[in-house]
């Protein structure tokens, strides 16, 4: 005898493979057996808390009491909308990602508690630098690398506006924890960040995003991944200019023409001269000018200490100010304990020269870099990207880009681009 199926079918076979409702001990005990480093009592306590929470959710959704751990959700009055409601509440409560047919496959509190415990345990295997922002969702994970502050706060704001199905993982800086030593170069950091990424997603294609200083890291990560034969489906930078040494040389030279703190007006002969040098250096990397510029920059004694700029000036080149040292800027923005890490990250970015990238790149930009790359909407990245480079304008400026209103638009534009990516859905 076949019963009516009153809601949509739940799997390819039509009927969801439900767990047995009368497993009184099976799931929980099996799970406890699998755990290491945790006593059975601790695990039971954890499961009990989960079961209690589930009981509460069931009562709220089904508006019934006297529920037992082995009651079937649908026999207790749940329908398809109730099942999804329960599922999204479980996901919100435990920050885990589960497929849409989960409640059909695990219709009892006991089986659901076991599933939750199993999923909660998964993140323990992540690399220490991975900060899960949203583990929920069936879409490919988006990896977001910290800017110069070393933390992933901007991406938390961004994730709030992205599709709930979009998993987002932040990568924090080494050195954020007091016991850690910061990396010595972008390349060294990128190698470790790739190891971190692979603890979440073992193989490509990868989806990478970097804001401000984080752009430099994701660019290097993309280069190394590609070199290793991994596929990158999405490489996007947010509001940043290319960190090429000639840019820094340009800044140093312009500094000679002003001693004021105000944004300076660059004499036209200097402007054209530098622009010529920059263009020549970018197009003749194998010639003499380029190494000369690099040497000039790298041998400038205490370059970071002498050049004073805001983060936007340093990284995006939107404004150039001159005058007293960078320490004032650091002091105004970061607590003392964080400054060594920020200094280290800035230094690494300043000393980094990207290689040519053969893939595609998307730049979300609040506008051209009028000082360092005037007339170049790619803000210097064009010289390093051999694939397609797409520039997407976003509202606000470097400081206001993550305000609620602007962040929402940025998220929509990122989502639009992700949807255009092959194999994303």
């Amino acid at each position, binding site marked *: *005898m*076949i*019963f*009516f*199926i*009153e*809601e*949509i*079918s*739940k*799997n*390819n*076979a*039509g*009927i969801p493979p439900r767990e047995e409702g009368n497993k009184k001990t099976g799931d929980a005990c099996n799970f406890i057996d699998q755990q290491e480093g945790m006593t059975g009592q601790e695990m039971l306590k954890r499961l009990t808390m989960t079961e209690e929470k589930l009981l509460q959710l069931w009562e709220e959704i089904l508006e*019934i009491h006297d*529920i037992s751990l082995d*009651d*079937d959700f649908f*026999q*207790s*009055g749940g*329908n*398809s*909308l109730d099942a*999804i*409601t329960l*599922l*999204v*509440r479980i*996901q*919100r409560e435990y920050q885990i990602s589960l*497929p*849409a*047919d989960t409640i*059909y496959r695990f219709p009892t509190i006991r089986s659901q508690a076991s599933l939750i415990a199993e999923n909660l345990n998964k993140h323990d295997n992540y690399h220490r630098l991975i900060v899960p922002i949203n583990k*929920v969702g*069936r879409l490919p994970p988006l990896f977001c690398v910290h800017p110069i502050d070393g933390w992933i706060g901007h991406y938390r704001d961004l994730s709030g506006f992205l*599709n*709930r*199905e979009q998993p987002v993982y932040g990568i924090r800086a080494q050195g954020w924890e007091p016991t850690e030593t910061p990396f010595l170069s972008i390349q060294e950091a990128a190698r470790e960040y790739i190891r971190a990424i692979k603890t979440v997603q073992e193989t490509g294609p990868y989806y990478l995003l970097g804001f401000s200083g984080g752009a430099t890291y994701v660019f290097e990560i993309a280069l190394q991944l590609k070199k290793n034969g991994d596929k990158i489906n999405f490489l996007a930078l947010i509001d940043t200019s290319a960190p090429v040494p000639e840019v820094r040389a340009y800044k140093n030279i312009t500094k000679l023409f002003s001693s004021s703190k105000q944004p300076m007006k660059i004499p036209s002969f200097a402007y054209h001269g530098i622009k010529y040098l920059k263009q020549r250096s970018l197009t003749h990397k194998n010639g003499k000018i380029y190494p000369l510029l690099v040497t000039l920059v790298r041998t400038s004694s205490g370059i970071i200490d002498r050049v004073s700029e805001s983060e936007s000036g340093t990284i995006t080149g939107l404004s150039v100010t001159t005058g007293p040292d960078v320490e004032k800027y650091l002091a105004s923005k970061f607590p003392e304990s964080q400054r060594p890490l920020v200094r280290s990250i800035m230094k690494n970015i300043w000393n980094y020269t990207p290689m040519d990238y053969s893939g595609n790149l998307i730049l979300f930009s609040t506008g051209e870099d009028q000082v360092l790359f005037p007339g170049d909407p790619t803000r210097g990245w064009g010289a390093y990207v051999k694939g397609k480079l797409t520039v997407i304008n976003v509202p606000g400026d470097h400081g206001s880009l993550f305000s609620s209103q602007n962040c929402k638009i940025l998220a929509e534009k990122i*989502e639009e681009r992700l*949807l255009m990516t092959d194999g994303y*859905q």
Partner: protein
Amino acid sequence: MDTSKIVQRCLHHHILTTGSSEMKGGSSGGQDVSAGSIHIWSARYSLLERYYPLLSTLISPEETQKAAGFKKPGDTRRYILRHGIVRVILGQYIHEDPEEIRFVKAKSGKPDLDSGGKFPDVRFSLSHTDEMVCLGITRNYEIGLDIVKTNPRTPFSEIEQYLFTPGERRWIERTILEQRSLQFFRIWSLKEALLKATGSDVTMMKEADVSGIITDTFLNGFYTIHLGKTDIRFFIHECGCDHGHHCAIAVNPGK
């Protein structure tokens, strides 16, 4: 008691005409579902209740057993009323006594009538809430019907983020605040109806994108839906029911 009295007193019968040559029919049963038409039957449990003694005798032993498994007595009773009345209605289409009707499982997992080869082209789709039951019937073409009660306690935003496409979410967001709840349930029931019509998995819900067709007025006509990797043309009809219910019907003329 004659079941025809139940039909007369309790059931609303509505015939949708697609008015298109896209849906052509073949032979039909006693209640005639003519080519290109869809029969919709609906009833409130409160009206069926007085016929419980009769309806409860029409269901199979297996259905009786299943009914007994519900935790809430109200669910048990509604299950029996629902399955009894469905047998009454379908019996008219395949010239069979309600208690004699047998069901088989289609490849997709949907239930199908086992009419012994007499009326192989009759298709149906059943949906219900705790107040109403609704049954859609067609000839030849797979039908999906979903009725939903617009419960304001539903966590709209989270479900939207989880199961709706970005286009659908943007569309809901554009509507005025007072209308968002209704628009959510419209999209939900449309998606359910589309998946039922195609025998698709619940995990495919996000793949059924209705953002390209939905408008402020209820849909009624032929629409192309992007489902998974293919475009499928459906006849779609939406209607608001009383007491905060919304109903969506999707018929797949290709099948």
